[in-house]
């Protein structure tokens, strides 16, 4: 018994190593690019099937002097079978933009479709989505940071495994496919167990570190889908910060395509 136990102790790391080695050649691509893509696909796959969700969002913009302003908005998202999500954001605060709504159809390939509803004029305007690198509502989040993250929008490279805030993560580099992106690359830390992003470093067009996004306070819904309540973006070059606080998550609320049209946009308040 004793010897057996001793044997086991010696043998087990060998077996583990062999097993892990087999597993990596079996389930992960041979090249860092393939392995990176596989992790990104797994992240996407695990979030498939949520159908739709709604949430409330508080956005706190801070400058380097410690002053802050708050915006409040409501979001709804509808998953699409073979394309990127449809989503709508409606503003409640600041008051001058109350009722202003933003409708976006994300596409896996090609530019997204976007419309803006201006309640004062009762006017829906189709807007160009080529401003993806521009700030969303004066925040440190660019349009491309808040839009639906489709696998096809980046190329990937697996870098290494790393401990982050006590959790095991995969560190990936992903490079935006669209030349209109404001970034040359992003480093993404993916939680190994849950396949969710915990942190992203954004590198600007000159390849210097621009922003860091830390994503936390994740909760699981319907025993499957992880949603984070805290998104904190720090701009290293300006010292400005933006904190997103999500709340009131609802899943499978029965939203349909007809709730994401120019017509429904006009009725958003």
């Amino acid at each position, binding site marked *: 018994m004793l010897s057996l136990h001793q044997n086991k102790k010696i043998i087990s790391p060998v077996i583990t190593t062999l097993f892990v080695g087999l597993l990596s050649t079996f389930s992960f691509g041979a090249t860092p690019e393939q392995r990176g893509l596989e992790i990104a696909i797994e992240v996407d796959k695990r979030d498939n099937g949520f159908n739709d969700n709604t949430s409330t969002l508080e956005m706190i913009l801070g400058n380097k002097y410690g002053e802050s*302003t708050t915006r409040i908005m409501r979001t709804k998202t509808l998953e699409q079978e073979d394309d990127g999500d449809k989503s709508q954001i409606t503003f409640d605060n600041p*008051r001058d933009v109350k009722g202003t709504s933003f409708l976006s159809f994300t596409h896996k390939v090609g530019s997204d479709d976007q419309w803006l509803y201006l309640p004062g004029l009762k006017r829906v305007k*189709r807007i*160009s*989505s080529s*401003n993806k*690198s521009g700030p969303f509502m004066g925040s440190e989040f660019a349009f491309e940071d808040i839009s639906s993250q489709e696998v096809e929008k980046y190329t990937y490279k697996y870098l290494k495994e790393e401990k982050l805030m006590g959790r095991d993560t995969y560190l990936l580099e992903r490079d935006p496919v669209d030349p209109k992106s404001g970034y040359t690359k992003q480093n993404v830390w993916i939680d190994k167990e849950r396949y969710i992003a915990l942190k992203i470093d954004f590198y600007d067009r000159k390849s210097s570190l621009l922003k860091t996004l830390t994503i936390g306070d994740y909760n699981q819904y319907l025993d499957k889908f992880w949603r984070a309540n805290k998104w904190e973006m720090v701009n290293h070059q300006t010292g400005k910060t933006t904190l997103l606080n999500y709340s009131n998550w609802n899943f499978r609320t029965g939203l349909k395509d*007809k709730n994401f049209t120019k*017509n429904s946009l006009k009725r958003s308040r």
Partner: protein
Amino acid sequence: MYSFANEITGYVGFEGRGFIDKPLYSNQKDNSLSTSINLEYFHDFEEVNESIVASIFARKDSSADGRDHIDISELYWWKAYENFELYIGARKVFWGVTETSHLVDVINSSDSVENVDGEDKLGQPMISLLYEQDWGTVELFALLGFREPTYLGAKDRLRSELLVDKDSTSYESSQEEKHIDFAVRYSHVLGDMDLGLIYFNGTSRNATYSKISVNNEDILQAHYNQVQIFGGDFQLTKGDFLWKLEATHSKPRSDSSYYSQVGGFEYTFVGLADSNADLGIFAEYQYDERDYAFGQNDLAIGTRFVLNDTQSTEFLAAITQDLDNKTKFISVEASRRLTDTWSIESELRIFSTVGSDDSLYELREDDYLQVVLKRYF
């Protein structure tokens, strides 16, 4: 679930206008102060497929003349049924895509005393049905009577030499302002393209004016024709370019028909010089078959500068040049949020080298700078 109810929102606006030139008429002032209020209320019923919306607008001006008014901009009931949506009541409906002229925006009458740009409208009573399908959206409108546009008074700046006398207003239809108008719109999104087709049959929202004498005083009589309008609007969104076109063919019942169009592009330099700011440039050509019309052969060029900062600071400047004479119309607008509840908007309008044969001639001494402070609640 998805919106607030039983809440009154809106704003109070404090407006100051300073006119650069001396007024043409002795009863007009060099400047004006004005207060406006806008109140909005809505209530969503349980299933979010039924709601009531109400909004009211009122203005009180220091000249205490034509600009003082109250309008029920919206007061309607909406319900979504299985296959269609129904609206009953007063609404504002905007149609169109272009920036410098709004040809297909034919549903509501102008609240002309608000601004020279004609973008302010009066609530239109209606019953309308909306039917949305994969192949497009069809909207049918029965417009229950005509809201006569507001007219400036003797003490107001930006008025015509002769005043419009509301009591003399005439209509082609024997039912006068009670004539029920009909309109239909088909609209669809096809990838990069947003398109719309419209048909309108009823009381024209634009008057023809004639000089008449009432009690030995010359006044302008507004006459509202019956008209049919066939029109379309189109926008192509391609990268940093927006291409826009609006065109209408109008057929007055007892006058010759005419064609009008406005079209052009807007191009945006995103993230100008590695900043957060966007700089847009746009150009639109306006054409109208009628010699006397606004925009009968005019070119408008302009720029939009958006800082994308926390205060949403924006500038919009445009110059409209009449290609047949020297008339220029210059407009500069700027806006910025001050706090969560206060914002400031300003505009400068210049009517330059206006030829005496031009429709803007009456406004030749009315260049002005306007500042509006708005308190939202």
